[in-house]
């Protein structure tokens, strides 16, 4: 079968240094120019095109990249990913309204908070079997929402109002409706996340995750400290979710527990599964398609979650590797293992 992923990898690997730089810069330039391509058939009936680019598309892409570290790379099913998103957003909301810190100062704090809660949840949960991990994370995602709903300090169901926008620099101002600026900011974060994942995948951590995903017991016997790397995958995934949360809060300026339901976790999971678990380009493509289509096709937007549920079932049964599967080399080992 024609495999777009392998074709792409082949072109990339046959290029010299200059060719690769040209491809990368060209791709980034096209993606960065997306806001200017609006006003055409890309417009959605509900929201205007540029705001759709920021949320859900860019936000979904960022979170899907983060969740992919946990699910795709190391094979751990995390169903409470929204918790880290919520923790990032509430850190921004609290610190942004109660202290004088600005978004760029809160961003590392939010990431640290998400990573810290990743450790708190991960250390007990990652000792358990895969299906137990799924249900623990599922519960955790809901617990974070319930805590936010019932603690007076977090604003209960009214949430937190009046979160400040990020301060501008170089004469760029972040206004509430300057979607382009937010889009480019998110794009920088996405590129950083892609860079981080690619660097890690090619190194010791990536090999450790790969071995954990394929056979955890064998990996453990061969001396891979599996627990340590599982916690690392979990915490890195959490850090990306936290960063997305901080930016989300300073974009919408208002957060409430209703923004952080279980459904978000499922949506992001659907993006990862649809695109192709483990392959970062597939995951990005999946997030773009699933973020965009429900807004573009009007009758889908009410039934969005229904569609995403169907996507999960159909993809798992008919094409478990997603629309852009991971490299053949990695897949072959799995096939042998299963037979």
């Amino acid at each position, binding site marked *: 079968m024609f495999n777009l992923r392998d074709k792409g990898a082949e072109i990339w690997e046959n290029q010299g240094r200059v060719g690769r730089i040209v491809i990368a810069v060209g791709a980034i330039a096209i993606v960065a120019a997306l806001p200017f391509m609006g006003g055409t058939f890309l417009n959605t009936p509900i929201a205007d095109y540029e705001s759709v680019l920021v949320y859900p598309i860019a936000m979904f892409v960022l979170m899907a990249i983060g969740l992919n570290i946990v699910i795709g790379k190391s094979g751990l099913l995390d169903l409470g990913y929204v918790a880290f998103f919520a923790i990032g957003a509430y850190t921004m909301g609290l610190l942004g309204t109660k202290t004088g810190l600005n978004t760029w100062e809160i961003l590392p704090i939010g990431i640290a908070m998400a990573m810290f809660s990743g450790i708190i949840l991960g250390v007990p949960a990652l000792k358990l079997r895969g299906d137990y991990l799924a249900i623990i994370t599922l519960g955790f995602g809901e*617990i974070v929402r319930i805590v936010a709903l019932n603690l007076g300090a977090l604003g209960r169901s009214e949430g937190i109002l009046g979160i400040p926008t990020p301060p501008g620099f170089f004469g760029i101002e972040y206004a509430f409706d300057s979607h382009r600026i937010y889009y480019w900011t998110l794009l920088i974060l996405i590129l950083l996340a892609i860079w981080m994942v690619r660097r890690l995948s090619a190194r010791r951590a990536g090999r450790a995750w790969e071995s954990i995903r394929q056979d955890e017991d064998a990996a453990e016997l061969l001396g891979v400290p599996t627990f340590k790397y599982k916690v690392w995958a979990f915490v890195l995934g959490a850090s990306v979710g936290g960063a997305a949360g901080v930016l989300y809060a300073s974009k919408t300026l208002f957060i409430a527990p209703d923004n952080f339901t279980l459904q978000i976790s499922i949506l992001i999971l659907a993006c990862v599964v649809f695109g192709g678990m483990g392959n970062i380009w597939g995951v990005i493509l999946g997030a773009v398609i699933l973020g965009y289509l429900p807004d573009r096709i009007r009758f889908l937007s009410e039934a969005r979650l229904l569609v995403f*549920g*169907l996507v999960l079932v159909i993809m*798992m*049964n008919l094409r478990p590797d997603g629309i852009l599967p991971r490299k053949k080399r990695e897949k072959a080992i799995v096939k042998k293992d299963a*037979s």
Partner: protein
Amino acid sequence: MIGNFLDQFWSLTFGGLSLGFIYILIALGYTMVYGVLRMINFANSEIFMVGTFATIIIIRDLFKFTQVSEYATGFRLWLILGTALIFAMLVSGILSMLVEMVAYRRLRRMNSGVLAPLISAIGVSMVLSESVRILTDSRPVASPRAMEKKFLGQFFDAGIRIDNTIIVISALVLFAILITFVNKTRMGKAIRAVSMNPNAARLMGINIDGVISATFLVGGLMTGAAGFFYTLKYENTSAFIGFELGIAAFTAAILGGIGNIKGAFYGGLALGLLETYASFFLGTQWKAVTVFIVLVLVLYTKPNGLFGEALTQTRA
């Protein structure tokens, strides 16, 4: 606070008991499936939710009860309750079998590991809850009251309400039927065989797919009965109740040792009581958090539950 608690102890206990029996029945849905597949049936919570709606359809649409109509009595009352119970059980049981066919069967044949069936089951439960949410416009649905909720007697100042009594007695009967089915019938024996060792069972000529379907059916029947009892007790449902009840019942199954039918019984009772007492002290909004903390503690300290996991332990 403590004084209040002692005053209300027995009425809390009765409420907790009937809640516990509802948990037991849902937990059976998890535990039966886990016993044969070694997999969490993620869609079970939504099968329960569909069971509550099936009950309301019978009471409200078939027997035309409204919020203001008079209570049914005598034979007619038992006819209504019986029809609703059987209908809810059948709908949930058949739905559960369908879920297995859609979400698990193909993946099981492909030998696809643990992750894929989990994700596909989550997809199915999303489809179920979203379909119901769209059909009900995201609004909770109240069940008309067909039965006058009178007190049967007094026990240390606490009234014994008729619906709680019905729940406890019928759940006990259902549980006894299930135990007999698993231990005494041919199909029950096949289920136990598959649970112990599916390959050996296949070699002995047992139709594995049939047994798994039957297990999902039985689990679904029990879960559907829980849906009926829940509607009888709380008279309210929505497309979203599956999640919370599901996690709680799953915790009950884990607490007793998942895969172990008797474990589900004790786990369900313990959790029902614990949750009721805890929400008296902390307030009902922290109910889900209490359950979650219990789940984490049990999994962390005693992952096989209080009564051990399954009949046999040795399958990965």
